[in-house]
């Protein structure tokens, strides 16, 4: 078994196929661990990890924290809302202050694209990007691919459509990189205003008709409309968006084959998918959450192995 080609997880863009395979193999073992009655291993007992969140998060933060604790790392949490950042401290100062307390790894979410990359060049710790603006969210893409592999046997050759707000979505970008790297066929689907102009350069197809996109795919990854990142209106009304790009049970049942429904959360029930779709047996949304812990344990374990 090799090691990761990188010292930080800043984005899927910086990984190669072997890295992903290694993370998945390691995650298999951790998935077995978290399904035991005693779900904890002592591996990282001498590692301290800081979770620094400059942006709100429930799932990702809990998932990282749980992954760290299951590996027996010491964990400190930091939310920008209650910090000196409000008093004008810079990012590097904030992080260096935290690192002087002997922290080995930083898990960071930040509203600005590239914040993790910037930080990795200026501070001495392993950085895990837990989402940087509309740029990347690598662990989400890894757990999405891992869930596809678990459900369909492999990722290569599968047709995956990402539906919704592609423009503001870091999940979409990381997913596109991860899926292409593993040999899947990717299309994006959504209103033209929410699809980046040059998306074709990433090797993905564009589909504006939802029904056609769903007929084509094996997996549909439904994204949330990120109202908080929209400064202008990208579509007339939420109701109209739902009519055009929302998946309901009727649409799902009208398809020729059974497709897998994924959603990175948080779900706006009744907007991008209805409740009966989210809770149907075709949905793997809760498996994604479980796999998230295993994937994050694997990433942290593999990065921690490289800290000397």
């Amino acid at each position, binding site marked *: 078994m090799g090691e990761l080609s990188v010292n930080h997880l800043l984005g899927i863009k910086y990984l190669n196929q072997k890295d992903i395979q290694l993370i998945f193999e390691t995650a298999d073992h951790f998935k077995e661990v978290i399904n035991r009655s005693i779900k904890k291993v002592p591996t990282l007992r001498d590692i301290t990890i800081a979770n620094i969140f400059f942006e709100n998060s429930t799932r990702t933060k809990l998932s990282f924290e749980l992954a760290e604790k299951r590996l027996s790392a010491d964990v400190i949490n930091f939310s920008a809302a209650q910090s000196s950042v409000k008093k004008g401290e810079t990012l590097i100062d904030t992080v260096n202050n935290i690192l002087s307390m002997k922290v080995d790894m930083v898990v960071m979410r930040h509203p600005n694209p590239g914040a993790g990359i910037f930080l990795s060049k200026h501070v001495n710790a392993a950085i895990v990007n837990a989402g940087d603006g509309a740029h990347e969210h690598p662990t989400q893409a890894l757990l999405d691919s891992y869930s596809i592999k678990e459900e369909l046997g492999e990722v290569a050759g599968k047709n995956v459509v990402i539906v919704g707000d592609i423009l503001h979505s870091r999940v979409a970008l990381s997913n596109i990189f991860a899926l292409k790297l593993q040999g899947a066929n990717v299309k994006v689907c959504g209103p033209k205003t929410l699809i980046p102009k040059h998306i074709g350069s990433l090797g993905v197809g564009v589909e504006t008709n939802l029904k056609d996109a769903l007929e084509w795919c094996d997996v549909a990854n439904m994204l949330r409309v990120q109202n908080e990142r929209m400064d202008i209106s990208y579509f007339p009304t939420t109701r109209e968006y739902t009519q055009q790009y929302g998946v309901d049970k009727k649409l799902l049942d009208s398809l020729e084959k059974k497709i897998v429904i994924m959603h990175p959360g948080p779900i706006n029930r009744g907007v991008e998918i209805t409740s009966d779709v989210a809770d149907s047996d075709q949905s793997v949304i809760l498996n994604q959450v479980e796999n998230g812990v295993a994937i994050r344990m694997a990433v942290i374990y593999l990065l921690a192995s*490289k800290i000397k």
Partner: protein
Amino acid sequence: MSQKRLLSDTEIHIILHRLACQLLENHLDFSNTVLIGIQPRGIYLANRLAKLLQQDYKVHDIKLGSLDITFYRDDFRRGDKILAANQTKIDFLVENKKVVFVDDVLYTGRSIRAALTAVQSFGRPKEIELLTLIDRRFSRHLPIQPNYRGRQVDAINEEKVKVMWKENDGEDAVYLVSR
């Protein structure tokens, strides 16, 4: 690099039967005993013993598991190599059971120390015993001794004991490799 054969396939065959008999003597029908092979190399010996007990000694219900100790080791980040995990497969509870750890070579004792910690994740065993094919005495770092041993070997630290199994390595043999 030279290597010397310590055990031939016939000798291994005889030793396996002796170890099986010693296990039988202490555990009789194995109703409350579980065999756990330590990954990666202990599983071959554990499988052999289980098969032997079932086929030649008519013990029908043998509980056999494999335990990976990677995440419990004490040398994480201390070596150059990244520690690679193997599969753990224990589909029974060890609560109140007599556990027999099975490994091919007992050397420093650190793997067994890790295994003792790891097995706690599956319950509180009544007691734990250790069975090993090769016991390298004089090289222990910890106060750990086997309850059943195949052969005791005096080897210096530069030497390596290599256990080969037909199902994986093409032959049954034990070699002492010096470099």
